[in-house]
């Protein structure tokens, strides 16, 4: 029997006179990998905030594993924010940041058990050698891998990621997809990820949610993330570096 991991029904969110989301409904089964794609200002991050219970919708309801986000036990849902959301000058080491994911607070000391658990997951995302480094010394790609480690440290059943590949080079991005897919296969977790990477979504996601304030299309990645839809949504076919002549054609 298929279990519903995430369900949204008629979500509407407005900021003053601006409508960020309008009547968004979808249902995602447990163990699937969903990519959310849409132009800037399409309401993608707003949708994640509603799912996480950070932003109450004006209308509609959401649930994860049949409950509201606030009713779920800590660690069941993990979230990887865009890197720019944290205070860049905060004095912290990589290990502290990952351990904060275990305890849900900032650690003043790190017990051996937490250190081991954090090191294991950092090994998996390829950042264990950075454990004692200051987070200020990391590159954008390294930082994203650290946040990915932090999100996996509690073995969540649902993983929500907001542009996790931002700041990564091609190799880092490919490694991130492999880490996510491996984790999903092993744990049966549900992954929902905002991305601008159409190719990555086609290759790795089971399904794509095309969003432009309302749901444009939702379904299997290969059919939804097609060039025709790209052209309709972005006015472009997705080949960023095609020549001017090709684009006009």
């Amino acid at each position, binding site marked *: 029997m298929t279990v519903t991991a995430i369900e949204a029904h008629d979500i509407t969110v407005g900021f003053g006179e601006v409508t960020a989301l309008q009547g968004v409904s979808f249902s995602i089964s447990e163990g699937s990998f969903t990519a959310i794609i849409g132009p800037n200002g399409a309401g993608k991050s707003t949708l994640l905030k509603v799912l996480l219970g950070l932003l109450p919708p004006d209308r509609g309801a959401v649930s994860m594993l049949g409950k509201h986000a606030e009713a779920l036990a800590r660690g069941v849902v993990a979230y990887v*924010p865009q890197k720019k959301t944290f*205070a860049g000058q*905060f*004095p*912290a*080491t990589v290990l502290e940041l990952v351990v*904060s994911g275990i305890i849900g*607070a*900032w650690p003043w000391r790190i017990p051996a058990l937490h250190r081991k658990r954090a090191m294991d997951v950092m090994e998996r995302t390829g950042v264990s050698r950075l454990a004692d480094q200051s987070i200020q010394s990391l590159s954008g790609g390294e930082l994203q891998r650290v946040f990915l480690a932090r999100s996996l440290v509690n073995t969540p059943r649902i993983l929500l990621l907001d542009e996790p590949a931002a700041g990564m080079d091609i190799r880092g991005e490919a490694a991130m997809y492999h880490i996510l897919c491996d984790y999903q296969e092993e744990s049966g977790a549900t992954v929902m990820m905002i991305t601008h990477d159409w190719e990555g979504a086609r290759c790795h996601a089971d399904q794509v949610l095309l969003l432009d304030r309302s749901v444009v299309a939702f379904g299997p990645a290969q059919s939804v993330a097609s060039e025709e839809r790209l052209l309709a949504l972005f006015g472009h076919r997705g080949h960023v570096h095609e020549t001017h002549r090709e684009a006009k054609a």
Partner: protein
Amino acid sequence: MIEFISLPLMQRAFLGGLIIAIMASFYGPFIVQRRLAFLGSGLAHAAFGGVALGMFLGKDPLLIAIPFTVIVALCIAWVRSHTDLEADTAIGVFFSLSMALGVLFLFLREHNASDATMYLFGSILALNKNDLYLSFAALLGCIASLPLWGRWAYATFDETLARVDRHPVIRDEYLLLVSVSVLVVISVKIVGILLVSAFLVIPAACARLLSRRFIHMMGWTLLINIGGVVCGLGASYLADVPSGPAIVLVQSAAFGLAFVKHRLAPIQ
């Protein structure tokens, strides 16, 4: 040199100064890392409004200044969370309002306002037993907030992550501002309104230059604050200069040394 410690007056000064140093070391790093350094000055000027109101009403100025400053802090937090204004703008508005009220209360007072200068420039040697009791009560409040350190630090690092983990981020910010208000008011008598923010900002800023971890920043802040009080009061006694500026000059010297260290061997 040691005989001055045997004076009850100096004992009270040391005790009061150390209590404030401990409290400022707990709250200061949060204030600096949340980019609220201007808050100390803003609340100190709000305290001036409260002190002036106390004088106008003929009551103990500090007892009136505490609720007055707490209300101003809550107004700042409320405006911050309900508008798009930056913290320094909200603080600036209430800073000016409180100063205007303070000047007005002093003008309306029948006696002259010369005793208000003690609060402007501070006089640690004027600390009495009641001031110490008040400081002890505030210290107990500070100790009671120790269990909140982890989630306050977490929200200081990233408010969104703290909210995802269901921490009451807004309520905690109100609590932090109220606690800092009380600290500012009880510090006014020691360093004066004009210098009170130094306790919150300079040692924490200095500690930031020396620390790779937030908990280490707290430790350095405590060390520099206590060193500032001990050396500043000692220098104040020996050189016969006001205690407030002496403490702030010691803190500033520590900042200078930390800055040089940071330039020569930055923390990795």
